[in-house]
């Protein structure tokens, strides 16, 4: 059991898969000699050479499309989009092509491609560079969308995503990159896609989150446990397929559900989960399902405004306490 950063865990998964399967290759802007803007691919260009760690021009639509073509022809491309904010110019390739090819070719050919890209806010990168757009993709049939929140999951899910025969949007997180955690020793360790995990047990409230918001949720649970309130934290890990059953199982126990996410609540992950929970757990609920998301504004530059827009621990805690108050629990 070694401690690694989230960034190192991703790098190790890429390294292991490059070594294991000659069909795997990486593609993206500055991922070779420069080692990637966030250094996830550091050392891999030197180790595997420019054929398998391919530099691209600044042309997301072009190289995502190239990845789709390579995947259709049997390779397993792992395409890096520098941040999720830059994925929008490749939207047509992802939604109209990657997500639909297996269906439109009658199952004859698929797109075993991973697009890995970090999102998240908090570094005053302002409106165009602070977004969490994963829910937009998670709404599209044909896509798989994952967003691990721990070092072990980053490693295990990256390997599973690369081995998956369908397109996977692998959402990393800028703040998570430096988070340290325990890596399993098992070199064959993998984590299945589409399975949520209860990362902290509790009886009073189910708090659901994904990506870096899981870390915030765990801190809120720690804080509130000092007041004798025990929050169960569910890490979704995958947004599509969505493991609503694990969430529902938790809500059946706690009778209350709060969903926190860094993206906007409107039409967001919480919106989808709230609908599922109301259907799966209607007779178990003691209060309406509640959501906390980023403020519904373009992310401001000003630090105080940025902090005000983020779903920080204080907001999550206030929402949790509000739900508990509605349930007559102080």
């Amino acid at each position: 059991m070694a401690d690694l950063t989230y960034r190192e865990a991703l790098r190790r998964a890429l390294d292991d898969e490059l070594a294991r399967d000659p069909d795997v290759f990486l593609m993206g802007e500055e991922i070779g000699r420069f080692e990637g803007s966030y250094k996830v691919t550091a050392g891999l260009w030197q180790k595997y050479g420019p054929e398998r760690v391919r530099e691209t021009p600044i042309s997301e639509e072009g190289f995502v499309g190239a990845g789709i073509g390579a995947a259709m022809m049997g390779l397993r491309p792992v395409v890096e989009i520098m941040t999720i904010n830059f994925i929008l110019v490749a939207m047509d390739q992802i939604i109209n092509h990657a997500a639909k090819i297996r269906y439109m070719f009658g199952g004859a050919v698929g797109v075993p491609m991973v697009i890995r890209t970090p999102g998240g806010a908090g570094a005053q990168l302002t409106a165009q560079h602070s977004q969490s757009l994963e829910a937009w993709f998670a709404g599209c049939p044909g896509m798989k969308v994952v967003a691990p929140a721990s070092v072990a999951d980053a490693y295990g899910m990256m390997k599973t995503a690369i081995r998956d025969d369908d397109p996977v949007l692998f959402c990393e997180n800028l703040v998570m990159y430096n988070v340290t955690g325990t890596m399993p020793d098992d070199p064959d360790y993998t984590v299945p896609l589409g399975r949520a995990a209860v990362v902290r047990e509790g009886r009073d409230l189910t708090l659901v989150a994904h990506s870096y918001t899981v870390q915030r949720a765990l801190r809120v649970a720690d804080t509130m446990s000092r007041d004798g309130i025990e929050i169960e934290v569910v890490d979704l890990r995958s947004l599509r397929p969505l493991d609503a059953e694990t969430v529902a199982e938790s809500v059946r126990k706690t009778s209350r559900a709060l969903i926190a996410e860094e993206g906007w609540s409107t039409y967001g992950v919480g919106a989808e989960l709230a609908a599922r929970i109301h259907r799966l757990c209607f007779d178990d609920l003691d209060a309406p399902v509640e959501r906390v998301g980023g403020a519904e504004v373009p992310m401001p530059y000003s630090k105080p405004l940025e902090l005000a827009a983020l779903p920080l621990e204080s907001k999550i805690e206030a929402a949790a306490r509000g739900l508990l108050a509605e349930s007559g629990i102080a």
Partner: protein
Amino acid sequence: MSEELVMPRLSDTMEEGTIGRWLVHEGDAFAAGDVLAEIETDKATMEFQAYDAGTVLRILVGDGETVALGAPIAIVGAEGETADEAASAGNGATTQPPQEAAAEPEPKAAAAEPEPEPKAAPARKPSKSSSKAKAAAGNGSRATAALRVSPIARRMADEAGIDLAAMAGRGSGPEGRVVKADVERLISSGELTRPAAADAPPATESAPAEGEIRELTPMLKAVATRMTQSKQTVPHFYVESEIDMTRAMQLRAELNSGLADSGDKISVNDLIVRASALALIQHPQAHRSYVDGKHVYHTHANVGIAVALDDGLIVPVLNEADTKPVREISRETRDLAGRARAGKLKQREIEGATFSVSNLGMFDVANFEAIINPPESAIIAVGATVDRPVVVDGEIVVRKIMRVTLSCDHRACSGADGAKLLLTIKQLLQSPSLLLV
């Protein structure tokens, strides 16, 4: 434009507030900064001030009633306006002609009050009569409350065979929604088919009837929650000692005869507070809080002093007691205790203690163990001072003996730390002139 005043958040931990009493009537004009009502939080009674000038159009929550944070408690607006313009519910205000209120030079007398109250008893009756008027007018949720039940509460009640009809509007959720916790209470109280409190008369000053069930006041709720949390999460250990108070009592008598004309009177408790404060500064390891896996050291001894109320208790805080002479401690304590009993403490006066003193000596208690008030790391429980035979230099003599028990948080300090603190308190009280320097 009229608008709703809502129950404000007056303490970090409050979830609901009780209107102690209104200081304005319906129809009264007020200026920004005027105190409109006294609101009881879980910790103290606080003044509720107006942010802007206006006129009270309707009081929605009467004296003694409790509502959740953010719930409307009154409708205010311009003189002559009716409450209906703000609140879609309710037509009660139409019984009070707006023109009359506008025309009347002294609005207090006319608009809100069919039968003007004598000025001596301001807020009580008006709000009751107004809520009656509302009830008569069939004013929405409050008066003729619909039965709202959360899904799981409904399922649990069904399974337990409880008829929730009488709980309409009485649940602890928003707008009286019956929630899981309410049903759990009903089940555990054994009142299965006869919902608790549904037929009980509103709590008054009368003695509780046999088997009567009453809601806890916010203060009692806070005590229940905090003490349960403390006993369940703070690993208490106890060190006990007997303190020879003979010289301290002599000193006290001397001081009080000297201070007789000043109005000051030093109590045994004042000496204990002073001794504790000085001892805490000498023993930093017994004067730190365990918070979130860390030790928080305290530079000054802020001593909480438990004050018994008719029903419950409150612990006002004497800040920086280590820097204050006994006489100052005595004065401040008397002031705090007096206002504690009157429910007039401010929020900041009941926060920030680093240690507490609980004294039941006046009840002739030999000895007891107190529960720590987190995040404080210790509390001293003080028994009565009594004449007892003790052995001094091989002779049996009668001395004034006081038994004390120090409860300590073992995460903050060790047994030896606690024992050293207690020993210093004892030495100070047994050589009490040290308390004066």
